[in-house]
């Protein structure tokens, strides 16, 4: 999925582009973020990594070390030139805000977040919703990624289970499908247009 650079001229953004915007594709590991991004992106998804230092709580500290370990957190992303002047980036980030914060300004000024949910692990997404609602005020929409063999629920049942507001869009999605992934992103942008959020600086 993650390709090495090669000298292709089409990897560059068109010279007419003067503005870039972004959508965060948020969800637990393995929920299909990179698949969705790859379905709609004009470039093969790229990966960047940051390291974070974490206290190794509950781990016997090794003599001479300070009880901290480093963890690598990866972010996969893609790009869509939506008009001759505007390019849209899709940044796939882990659910927890402390991870997105590794990329400075990642959430700042975003169109919104598309939260991918796996019906086999609904509880994984509770923390994501809490953070989006309480800490960012960022518009978001929910896309339920239908994995083969995953339980199918009625969307209104899921809305209740996820404790979503009546206005929050929730759609089913096949992350492998370009059309289906685009429809989920459209639901988010449409929502952001209908419910403008008052500025809440994230920085």
């Amino acid at each position: 999925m993650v390709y090495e650079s090669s000298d292709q001229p089409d990897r560059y953004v068109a010279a007419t582009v003067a503005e870039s915007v972004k959508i965060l594709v948020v969800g637990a590991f393995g929920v299909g973020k990179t698949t969705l991004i790859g379905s709609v992106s004009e470039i093969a998804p790229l990966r960047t990594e940051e390291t974070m230092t974490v206290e190794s709580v509950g781990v016997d500290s090794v003599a001479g070390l300070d009880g901290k370990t480093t963890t690598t957190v990866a972010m996969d992303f893609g790009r869509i030139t939506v008009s001759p002047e505007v390019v849209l980036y899709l940044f796939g980030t882990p659910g927890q805000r402390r991870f997105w914060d590794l990329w400075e300004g990642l959430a700042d000024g975003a169109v919104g977040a598309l939260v991918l949910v796996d019906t086999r692990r609904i509880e994984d997404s509770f923390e994501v919703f809490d953070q989006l609602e309480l800490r960012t005020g960022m518009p978001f929409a929910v896309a339920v990624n239908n994995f083969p063999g995953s339980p199918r629920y009625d969307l209104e049942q899921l809305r209740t289970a996820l404790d979503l507001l009546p206005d929050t869009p929730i759609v089913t999605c096949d992350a492998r499908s370009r059309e289906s992934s685009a429809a989920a992103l459209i639901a988010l942008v449409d929502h952001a247009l209908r419910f403008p959020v008052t500025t809440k600086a994230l920085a």
Partner: protein
Amino acid sequence: MARDDFHDHPVRSYVITSGRAHPSRNTIRPETLLVAEPDMPVPPSAGRQARALLDICRGMLSSAEAAAYLRLPVSLVVVIASDLVDTGHLSIRSASPRHAPPDRDLLEKVLNGLRKL
């Protein structure tokens, strides 16, 4: 920290900067578009990573893309890019980053673009 290095100030710096850790002078986000200035020769003092960044930015790329191609963390590319913007070797092509969400006009462009996919 040496005692002389510490100067208290009635207004904390993170208040002055709205919590930002870096100056807004040339704030570079992961989606910020960068391009090398073609007429500016690479400074002899430039390090290997700065040279690689100027090389990959012969065309326009976001800082995240440049970082991915160079296999460097975005946080590092942002620091190198800021210096190169200051010296005039690299330009920021996208509109300055905002703390507010995109305006209606921009959202409509995004929506129309997604509908064409």
